[in-house]
């Protein structure tokens, strides 16, 4: 059941993004930024957590989950350390993704040559 929900949810988000790009003048850069803000907004009241529980891995893949894990780590730390915990815990959950993206991008630039 998780597989079907993952397919539907991830596909749904991508279709919405495609609609926004086709019918307005926004570029993919705008849309991904909007989606991240939207994900952070959804997790303010734990709605995204609920979606992940229902959908599984398909909800962790779109860029909305980046916003979700930023605010999730921040709130978790804030509950033990107070308001400055928001700053301490911001990267707690996304650290793996960002670090891996930086390292792989660096290695890609070292190994390959630009095609253009």
């Amino acid at each position, binding site marked *: 059941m998780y*597989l079907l929900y993952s*397919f539907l949810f991830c596909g749904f988000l991508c*279709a919405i993004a495609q609609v926004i790009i086709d019918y307005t003048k926004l570029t993919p850069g705008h849309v991904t930024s909007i989606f*991240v803000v939207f994900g952070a907004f959804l997790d303010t009241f734990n709605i995204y957590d609920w979606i992940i529980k229902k959908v599984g891995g398909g909800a962790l*893949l779109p860029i909305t989950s980046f916003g979700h894990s930023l605010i999730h780590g921040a709130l978790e730390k804030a509950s033990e350390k107070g308001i400055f915990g928001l700053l301490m815990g911001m990267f707690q959950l996304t650290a793996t993704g960002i670090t891996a993206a930086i390292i792989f991008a660096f290695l890609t630039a070292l190994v390959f040559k630009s095609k253009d």
Partner: protein
Amino acid sequence: MKNTKYNHIADLHKPKENRLIHIFISFLSGGFLGLVGEGLVEFFVSYFSLSRTDASTFMILVFIFMASLLTGLGVFDKLVSIFRCGLLIPITGFAHSMASCALDYRNEGPIYGIGSNMFKLAGSVIVYGIVSAWFFGTIRYLIEVFFL
């Protein structure tokens, strides 16, 4: 020739792109990636007996690695022109934007080329993600402190 007439004629000869088909393709390809992601999570859980949280981290690592590799090989841009948003909205788009920026500015040297241009496109995602997460987090924290 008048401008309006020119525009009219130019419109007639534009290649007709069917937007509905683009949307449908994005839906299918994005959904397929989601399906593979969930499949990978279940694979890691059952074969390597990881917890679900660890398994999803590894799943995201696999996608970031694949996206960087395909960008390096020059395949990713062609795939994006076919599948469009289906590849840009999942984490693969994020990894692709970083890897392609690093690759494009490689000629300008390791510091001012790769180092300072890597976040040229992905930076906006990180900046707005952090600012919005901080803003919403503060609101949520204040609500919890004062009203609950």
